[in-house]
């Protein structure tokens, strides 16, 4: 188990370096640079050169990247070009809001999805199954920001039940959580249904039923436990994707999270802030997906065993 986690953690390093390098180089290539706003007419060519040297613009992009990454490890990502505040601190204050929203949506989505997926699988091929499939397809096709706006039209403009934006009370969470949770529940339902269907004809289920295990226990203990892996993957993926794509739903509800911070930063050409936000969010995404992989091994001893037998062998066997 430890070996597995360590291997996976080590693998994280090259991926993170590549991901952040790609983003840094892209953002660095964006038109306009950090010193543009500082240059004024009174400056001589030498002053400008001096400024360039100060911000390492005379050196290669990789030098700047290296320096930037060193800063990242010290929790120093430079400061916003507009507000002058530390990027790391700005991200840190906004982050809990995004996390809250994503986790609540995830909880709502999962609570709807797992029972519904099991229900659909148990009634496979019937009208109930088809209805569930229709529901999930609608959930997958509905843009979450559009659902968010429809909720705003009904609950905020027509009957004025919930506030349209963030105001700190519990009420302002209701609509964004529903809007975010709905599409999540759709894909988790789909995954749950097919995972349960994969195990539903196994002999051990017949055995369990034959010896008189009550049906709910068969479902929870025998079916669900053997179907967990794809479901957990889906849940983890959804969490990672929601956090990374939080910009859209945060834009709908003027939510003070990192997604909106990112949009504002990019729109105001605040490259330092934008780059910091994107790199931190991408890092978070990669780490979350890794955690899902490690959770696997907790759920499924077979995967653990494969890893202690050696990574190579397992990959060859898969091929």
């Amino acid at each position, binding site marked *: 188990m430890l070996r597995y986690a360590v291997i996976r953690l080590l693998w994280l390093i090259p991926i993170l370096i590549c991901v952040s390098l790609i983003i840094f180089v892209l953002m660095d290539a964006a038109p306009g640079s950090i010193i543009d706003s500082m240059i004024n007419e009174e400056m001589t060519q030498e002053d400008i050169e001096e400024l360039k040297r100060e911000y390492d613009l005379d050196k290669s992009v990789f030098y700047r990247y290296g320096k930037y990454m060193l800063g990242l490890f010290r929790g120093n990502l430079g400061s916003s070009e507009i507000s002058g505040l530390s990027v790391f601190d700005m991200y840190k204050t906004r982050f809990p809001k995004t996390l809250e929203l994503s986790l609540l949506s995830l909880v709502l989505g999962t609570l709807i999805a797992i029972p519904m997926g099991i229900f659909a699988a148990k009634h496979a091929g019937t009208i109930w199954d088809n209805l569930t499939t229709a529901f999930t397809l609608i959930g997958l096709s509905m843009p979450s920001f559009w659902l968010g706006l429809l909720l705003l039209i009904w609950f905020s403009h027509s009957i004025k039940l919930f506030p349209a934006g963030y105001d700190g009370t519990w009420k302002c969470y209701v609509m964004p959580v529903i809007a975010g949770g709905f599409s999540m529940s759709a894909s988790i339902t789909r995954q749950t249904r097919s995972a349960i269907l994969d195990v539903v004809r196994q002999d051990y289920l017949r055995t369990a039923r034959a010896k008189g295990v009550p049906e709910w226990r068969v479902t929870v203990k025998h079916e669900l436990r053997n179907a967990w892996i794809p479901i957990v993957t889906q849940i983890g993926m959804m969490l990672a994707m929601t956090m990374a794509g939080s910009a859209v739903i945060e834009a709908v509800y003027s939510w003070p999270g990192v997604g909106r911070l990112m*949009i504002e930063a990019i729109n105001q050409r605040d490259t330092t802030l934008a780059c910091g936000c994107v790199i931190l969010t991408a890092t978070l995404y990669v780490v979350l997906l890794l955690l899902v992989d490690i959770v696997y091994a907790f759920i499924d001893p077979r995967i653990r065993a494969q890893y202690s037998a050696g990574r190579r062998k397992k990959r060859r066997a898969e091929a």
Partner: protein
Amino acid sequence: MSRGQTETIVSRKEGHSATLASRKYKKKSAFLESWNRLRTNPGAMFGLIVIILMVLLMVYSFMFITEEDVMAINSANRFKPPSAAHPFGTDSMGRDLFMRTVYGTRYSLAVGFFSVAFGLVVGVFFGTLAGYFGGWVEEIIMRVSDVMASIPGMLLGMVIVAVLGPSFLNLLIAIGVSNISGFIRMSRASILSVKGSEFVEAARAIGMSEFRIAFSQVLPNSVSPLIVTATARIATSVLAAAGLSFIGFGVPVPLPEWGALISDGRNYLGRAPHLTLFPGIFIMLTTFACSLLGDGLRDALDPKLKQ
């Protein structure tokens, strides 16, 4: 003797020597078989019909709706609710929303189609190389693909559009790039599953080059999962494009891309909810249709997968 019976006897006479001639016929029947399975699937047919309708709408918009029609400002006509003259109502500048939405079909359909086609071509090329040749080629391609898959699509889209500036082409590139790694994995996996077949050995025995075997023998035999994935990816790409446009990282205003239309409508939620409602229905219908068709194709092309 009726004509059918004659044919039977003739074909019987030819016996097994006719296998070569019937190969063409067999190939066609595999396609027909899939088509018949697809045809009996009401969901898939619904999806197909909606997609055809959308394409027809797009053709209509190319022929009859000019850019002036959707851009001309008419301040006397602002915020009209849906009526016979304006089926979807009018927007804050008095422009007809129906015309704008129909005009917008081209953006969403084009993003859906071309970004997937881009991801498919690039992804399948590298995926085939990786799956067929293995070794260090596979290692490099798969690790690069891992890195690409590690960058969340939405973020990559925002960054690419931020760097290149908001335009239709840049939106297409942004989404196309995020489609690549999925296709690399898919095609590698399906290549691996047919690579050991006898027909590959046969091709090698007659002296075909490895590169040609990979692309002319192995690839065509692993194509059905790719078709299914591509159809499903069109749906997610349309959604992603709408999302990016909605937050201002897509087609620049005032062009009537659906996400951008919704973004415009959100300023008048209380006053003119129809501005938000109709473009959203179009997005939903398009993605819904593609998902249905994708599911139907999966069942039709590979009945084994059907649950």
